[in-house]
């Protein structure tokens, strides 16, 4: 099985030479040198740069980017009073997130004192809704949750991803790292096989990126809609014939933290537009 995968990748490599360049190839992409000397890669590049102009052009245009429709929806919900406490998320949120609104999008997943563990942005929102607002939690992949998370992360657009992985976050970080390199599924592959060993190479006709998540929640043409990192993790696991974990699973939160760390230094691009 492993041999078959290796041969397929080798063939894709050869085929790849025939395709037009992306910015990553031609050297115009922003390349970050990892600040952390324990980073496994020598360069960090956003997924934006692995896509062709037709896709990059849409992300660059807030009018055309269909993800902005979901952001608009999130903005509406943000200011809407909901729940028994008579508050809107805009009033309750900073207290729950424990950091200012314009920073949230670049530091989550994060160790949250009220929760007592590392949690994702979706979990902060639901914690806030349930405990502070007295409102019902949103379903992880609902339009409401995607709208709010996209709206919040967009407030950090242009600033640098900066998740903390030391101190109280280190256990989740180590767990996420272990998962990243763990082979799973019938195809017996890990995240690293594609996103660490083969970024810049082709899998069929797609150029593999480093798998950074600085643009999430992102619109994907494949989904014809906006989705979360957990959706992306689940989809990948299904592709390698592994059983996907449920949305919001602790392992996915850990993986999200670790993957975000791999992209520390990149600009937040939410809401991105990708393949």
């Amino acid at each position: 099985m492993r041999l078959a995968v290796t041969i397929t990748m080798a063939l894709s490599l050869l085929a790849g030479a025939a395709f037009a360049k992306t910015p990553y190839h031609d050297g115009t992409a922003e390349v970050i040198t990892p600040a952390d000397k324990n980073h496994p890669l020598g360069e960090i590049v956003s997924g934006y740069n692995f896509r062709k102009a037709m896709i990059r052009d849409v992300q660059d245009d807030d009018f055309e980017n269909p993800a902005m429709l979901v952001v608009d929806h999130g903005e509406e919900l943000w200011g809407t009073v909901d729940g028994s406490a008579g508050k809107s998320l805009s009033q309750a949120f900073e207290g729950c997130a424990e950091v200012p609104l314009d920073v949230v999008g670049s530091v989550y997943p994060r160790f949250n004192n009220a929760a007592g563990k590392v949690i994702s942005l979706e979990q902060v929102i639901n914690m806030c809704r349930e405990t502070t607002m007295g409102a019902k939690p949103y379903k992880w992949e609902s339009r409401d949750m995607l709208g709010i998370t996209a709206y919040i992360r967009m407030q950090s657009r242009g600033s640098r991803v900066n998740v903390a992985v030391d101190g109280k976050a280190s256990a989740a970080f180590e767990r996420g790292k272990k998962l990243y390199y763990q082979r799973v599924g019938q195809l017996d592959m890990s995240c690293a096989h594609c996103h660490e060993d083969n970024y810049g190479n082709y899998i069929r006709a797609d150029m593999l990126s480093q798998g950074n998540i600085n643009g999430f929640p992102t619109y994907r043409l494949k989904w014809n809609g906006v989705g979360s990192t957990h959706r992306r993790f689940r989809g990948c696991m299904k592709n390698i014939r592994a059983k996907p974990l449920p949305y919001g699973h602790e392992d996915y939160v850990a993986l999200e933290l670790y993957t975000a760390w791999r992209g520390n230094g990149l600009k937040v691009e939410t809401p991105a537009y990708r393949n």
Partner: protein
Amino acid sequence: MKQTTQFSTISRRHALAMLGAAGAAVLAGVPAYADGAAVAAKIKGLTGGKSVGEGTIELDLPEIAENGNAVKVAFSIDSPMTTDNYVKVVHVMADGNPTPEVASFNFTPAMGACSASTRMRLAKTQNIIVLAEMNDGSFKQAQATVKVTIGGCGG
């Protein structure tokens, strides 16, 4: 990536050749996608068999579309767009989709220029044909090929 093409008459021989190929494809039992013949038939229906003339139609299409879900298609047709001389309708067709029609656009002189841009779904690598009808009943046409690639993975 802009592709500028000038196109002239579809000869009867060409149209018959395409119909012949379509016949062979049906016998071979290939899936029922439109092809050159379906587009030729559609064009004939629109033009009434009139010859299709020359003229510069600039097509803005990617050479390779990473994903067939939302492929940019734009065109620009050189026309004064006065009440005496303007482009009336522009048809966009794709010869490899289940049905060839993508969209049609009705222009008026009030627009001052003849161009439009939208995004289309392409089932596979195929030709995009743009057929323009002038106010005097004449036609112009242009076409280009878009390669559509199958993605890798990612759920």
